[in-house]
């Protein structure tokens, strides 16, 4: 499932970068520190914010950080989720600006294929080694 989401992010990132830039969604700065009124939307935003990396902190998500920039990014995420945008579209837009580094969930691409294939490959290799142990 994560692979499919990552693939969606990939497709969205490939869309013209100017698309969202030409009509910037109005960002409500208060949303950096105020949850959305709709709990379902807030949960959606929260899930995404936990997967976006704070740029000015060490290994911390924007949901966990009290850095200014994390607050600005939270405001952006909540505003756009509230405006009806899909979380993956918001993620893709931030990736288009900061690169893949900003997302804690690595996208599925040719150069991350090996990463996502590790569990399967490790089990396969282990299975081959272990096979001759069994009768």
């Amino acid at each position, binding site marked *: 499932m*994560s692979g499919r989401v990552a693939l969606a992010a990939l497709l969205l990132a490939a869309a013209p970068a100017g698309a969202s830039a030409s009509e910037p969604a109005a960002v409500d700065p*208060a949303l*950096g*520190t*105020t*949850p959305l009124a709709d709990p379902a939307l807030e949960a959606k935003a*929260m899930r995404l914010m*936990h*997967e976006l*990396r704070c740029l000015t902190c*060490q*290994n*911390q*998500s924007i*949901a*966990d*950080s*009290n850095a200014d920039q994390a607050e600005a990014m*939270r405001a952006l995420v909540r505003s756009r989720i509230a405006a009806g945008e899909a979380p993956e579209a918001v993620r893709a837009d931030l990736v288009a600006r900061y*690169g*893949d*580094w*900003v*997302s*804690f*969930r*690595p*996208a599925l691409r040719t*150069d*991350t294929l*090996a*990463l*996502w294939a*590790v*569990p399967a*490959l*490790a*089990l396969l290799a*282990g*299975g081959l080694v*272990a096979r*001759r*142990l*069994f*009768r």
Partner: protein
Amino acid sequence: MIPSPAELGHLSLWLAAAAALVMAAAPVRPALVGLARPAAVAHGLLLLCAYAAMTHAFLVSDFSVSLVATNSHTAKPLLYRLTGVWANHEGSMLLWVLILGVAGLAVALARMPLGETFRARTLGSLGVVALGFLAFLLFASNPFARLDPAPPEGMGLNPLLQDPGLAFHPPTLYVGYVGLVVAFALAVAALLDGKVGPAWARATRPWVTLAWAFLTMGIALGSWWAYYELGWGGWWFWDPVENAALMPWLAATALLHSIRVLETRDALRNWTLMLAIAGFTFSMLGTFIVRSGLLTSVHAFAVDPTRGLFLLVLLLGLTGWALLVWALRAPKVAEGARFAMTSREGVLVVNNLLLMALLAIVFIGTLYPMALEAWNGRQISVGPPYFNATTVPLIVLLAVLMGVGPFLAWKRGTTSGLSRRLLLPGLVATASAGAMLALFGVSGLLALLGVAASAWLAVASLQLLLRRGLTFGRAGTALAHLGVAVSILGATASGALQREALVSIPLGDGFALSGFTVTLDDVAPRAGPNWTALEATLSVTRDGAPVATLRPQSRTYTSPPMETTEAGIAMWRAGDLYAVLGKPDGSGRWQVHFWVKPLIHFIWWGAVLMALGAVVALGGALRLGALARRRRALPAPPAAVPLPAE
């Protein structure tokens, strides 16, 4: 002039290096074998002297020792002056070699059923490792380097490290690492001796068990520290330094189980030896990652790339040598009799396979960003979403097998009576997942699987514990497995049922979160021994009744100047209410981050149970050894291996 304690400490370190050299050289010639034990004893005692000298320098604030001047302060509380010895790079490496020295002392003085040549070879390997680390200490990070003139006052200590959780985290972890070094030394000795079998497994298992217990506690302490000290609300960040400690733990867990197969069935010889080498390799790799600053981390406080290179050479030299010996000398015989899939050893092999897959995920996930950036310049983050998605299914599978394995017989592939035994765990698991879904509305597949797996394993482990004819070994297994179940439950529930709010509110105002009402009553300045803080008072009520008062702080330390957040935490049922005070926005509003974290304590209690299980099993193993000794001593049949002169 009488040399100062610090100078004596420095001298002891050099003498210890000489003793390590003797240890390393002793097994080379039969005539020298007798020197191994006295050299190991001297080595251990000299390191104790060196460590005592350093502790003395910290206690009396001898700022002519550069390390003390940089890391201590006369205003620092006594406890943290003691723990300050290892709360820095040089001191922590000194503690590492001290523990290694004490382990060598134990190997030299303990009984060695495998013979004196074998003991000398084990001590020889320990000597080589000690020599490497002592060279690192003496040439690349001398803890006894002096300052002339001595400064009148020290420069303090990283305030994040002035904390009981962190103070005892490194020593615990180091005992675990050193335990793996001993297992490594025993494996190399076994390879050189060609004595790999049940007797070797019996001699090695206590060390692996001990190492595993300490690694478990060390990791749990680190996680607990990060949870309440970093003030981020999380307990595991899949941070490089955390992963660095997790990798040897995974290898040790696999070793702990494969060595049982070797002991009982005389099988998996090469594999067990390889795991013993791997456990050591990954603990070295962990030390390297933490100390070299190769990967940025929230936990890395002392980093230096040139020292990194030294450690890397040490890592490659020691493990390269061991792997070469393995390639040349690993037993040529087949792995023994074939296994039935439904035998105890069959499940243990699958367990090893899953653990190795987890190890591969953690290893690749940790190093992948660095590799990719070197490859094509792309910066990526591999974070919790990746690790959770890849590891949780394997952990669930592992938990299911852990419930079954202990009920299976060795060797035979029969499953009779198994379904009857597993009926109750299965029912409870289904019911728990159903309850999560129906009562709490948790619909995430991984969360439901986690709860079910935890319930399954807990019930199966309790059944194991209550079965007739309980032995130390089985009780240990049952307790450790129960601990895993408890930890999984804590991790799953605290994640799936967690509620959080990040708000900006003025004094007197409040907010509501999942039945709780939180009010910001006050923000007032507070002063501690070496810090000042802004402390918020948050009162939490539920249905109008007061539940807790949380006092999160935003602290400013004086030497060195540094700001930290101190979370306000209160137990609620078996979980926590957790609050962090953020910045004021200038118009009288304060940023407050508030979490409800049900069952989160289960994570660490589970780890305590795991370590307890290991201690019980260790007791069993030692008792078994004593029993075997007594039996041998009574009618005195000629022992297969010469008894050591004691």
